[in-house]
């Protein structure tokens, strides 16, 4: 499907003719009987995988199939924070790759993803956290990720509405990543989808996978609610439902699915132009361009596929945030929602070959998938094109659980991404 460029000129042209000339951003084709590559899951990660397969590796006979609508899972349910201040080298590498790709994503996709590198602060509110973030700042310096540890005065300068002397957890400092920020989550999925469609790939929505067919230990295709589709290689990029698809492919995953929730307030005037994460008290907050305070909360401790979380987590999160930001105490909350996050044993993602030949999996991003979308797609595409994981993906193989090579990101432990 040929793509018309979005530009200021296009806006003017369409304004002059009552916006009658905008084309559909992506095609809605019928599935073909066979593709070289089928990717299950048209969220950010799946679409990014397809995009980089085409762009970096020249593979464009690709279908991305999605049981609901494009970007309707966790891509549309997160709090849009982008950062890469991780402690362990493999995590820092892939998240920093993603963050760097986000910087030019709007130009690359010709879709304004509204990447806003407004800066991210992770507050240190206990002695333990203070030492932890100092260590992370040193690790980041070695990894080439630009972060710095800042004192309470600088935190107050960056976030005037913060209360440094909270009743339970005073702010002792923070880990500041000036180049982190937020982006428009739907636009990321839409931009990748539009670019994939323009390369001739098929994005097939409302098409649920009901089975995975194998022949001689090699993947042969998938059965879907819209008929059977053969494929040479299969990528499973379905986040919370990874376990269900792995079951169809005949292997088990070190994953449990839990509900993580978020909420937004009524819109208010601009009061905070950075992202603040308070991990000790399980709350994080940023202000959207519409003025809503976007708040991330805790994950339930038990397995759940309900896409709604427990109420007491909202209470805990809001209680903690009011201590840190007294200004929000009378703010009304507009809506609340939950997403199903796939938590691995070490809270780090899986980008891996599987026991089934030709079948690859990308999952386990848990509470922090959005920020990784471009890097994750890049690494997954490289693995699917070459058949072996590249340098970005190598450490995230499934075998690490058997071999004990965990990527132990304490910062990813169930909250605050």
């Amino acid at each position, binding site marked *: 499907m040929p793509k018309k460029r979005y530009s200021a000129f296009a806006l003017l042209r369409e304004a002059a003719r009552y916006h009658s000339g905008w084309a559909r951003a992506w095609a809605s084709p019928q599935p073909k009987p066979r593709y070289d590559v089928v990717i299950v899951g048209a969220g950010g990660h799946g679409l990014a995988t397809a995009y980089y397969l085409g762009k970096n590796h020249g593979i464009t006979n690709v279908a991305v199939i999605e049981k609901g609508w494009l970007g309707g899972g966790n891509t549309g349910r997160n709090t849009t924070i982008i950062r890469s201040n991780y402690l362990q080298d493999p995590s820092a590498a892939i998240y920093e790759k993603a963050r760097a790709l986000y910087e030019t994503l709007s130009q690359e996709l010709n879709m304004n993803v509204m990447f806003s590198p407004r800066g991210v602060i992770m507050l240190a509110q206990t002695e333990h956290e203070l030492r932890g973030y100092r260590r992370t700042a040193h690790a980041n310096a070695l990894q080439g990720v630009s972060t710095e540890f800042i004192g309470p005065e600088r935190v107050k300068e960056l976030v005037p509405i913060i209360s440094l002397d909270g009743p339970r957890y005073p702010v002792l400092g923070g880990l500041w990543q000036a180049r982190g920020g937020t982006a428009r989550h739907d636009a990321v999925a839409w931009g990748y989808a539009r670019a994939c469609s323009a390369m001739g790939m098929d994005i097939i929505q409302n098409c649920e996978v009901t089975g995975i067919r194998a022949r001689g230990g090699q993947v042969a295709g998938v059965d879907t609610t819209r008929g059977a589709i053969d494929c040479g290689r299969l990528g499973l990029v379905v986040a919370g439902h990874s376990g269900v698809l792995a079951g169809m492919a005949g292997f088990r995953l070190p994953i449990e699915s839990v509900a993580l929730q978020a909420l937004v307030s009524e819109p208010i005037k601009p009061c905070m132009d950075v992202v603040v994460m308070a991990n000790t008290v399980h709350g994080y907050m940023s202000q959207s361009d519409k003025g809503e305070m976007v708040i991330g909360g805790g994950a339930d401790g*038990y397995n759940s596929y309900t896409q709604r979380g427990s109420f007491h987590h909202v209470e805990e999160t809001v209680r903690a945030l009011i201590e840190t930001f007294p200004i929000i105490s009378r703010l009304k909350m507009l809506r609340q929602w939950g997403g199903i996050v796939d938590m691995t044993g070490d809270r780090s993602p899986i980008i891996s070959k599987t026991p089934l030949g030709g079948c690859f999996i990308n999952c386990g991003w848990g509470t922090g998938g959005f920020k990784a979308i471009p890097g994750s797609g890049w690494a997954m595409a490289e693995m699917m094109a070459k058949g072996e994981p590249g340098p970005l993906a190598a450490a995230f193989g499934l075998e690490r659980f058997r071999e004990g090579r965990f990527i132990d990101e304490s910062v990813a432990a169930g909250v605050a991404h």
Partner: protein
Amino acid sequence: MLLLTCPCCGAEADETELQPGGAAHLTRVGPGAPDEAFESYLFHRENPRGVHIERWRHAHGCGKWFHAARCTRTLEVFGTYPAQITAPPQPIRDAIAAKHPGWAWKEGK
């Protein structure tokens, strides 16, 4: 809010009173077991979208561990039973089968 009845003290407790303990009735392996067995015991989980048999502790009550059968899709609870029992008792299996006709208990996970 999830409500579970503690089979030890009989109290109906909401989830803020309880501590979740993950999937129940795992086959524990000991020294000498191969790496695959340890991997399976430590990390691999059924993670079903449906009936889940799990462990809970009545942390802010009697403090005892117990088992619960619950649907992860609807949060419906089929019943709870003491921690000493090594497989779901028949009344609970019947309650699950009434709602999930295809469900069957698999031994030795």
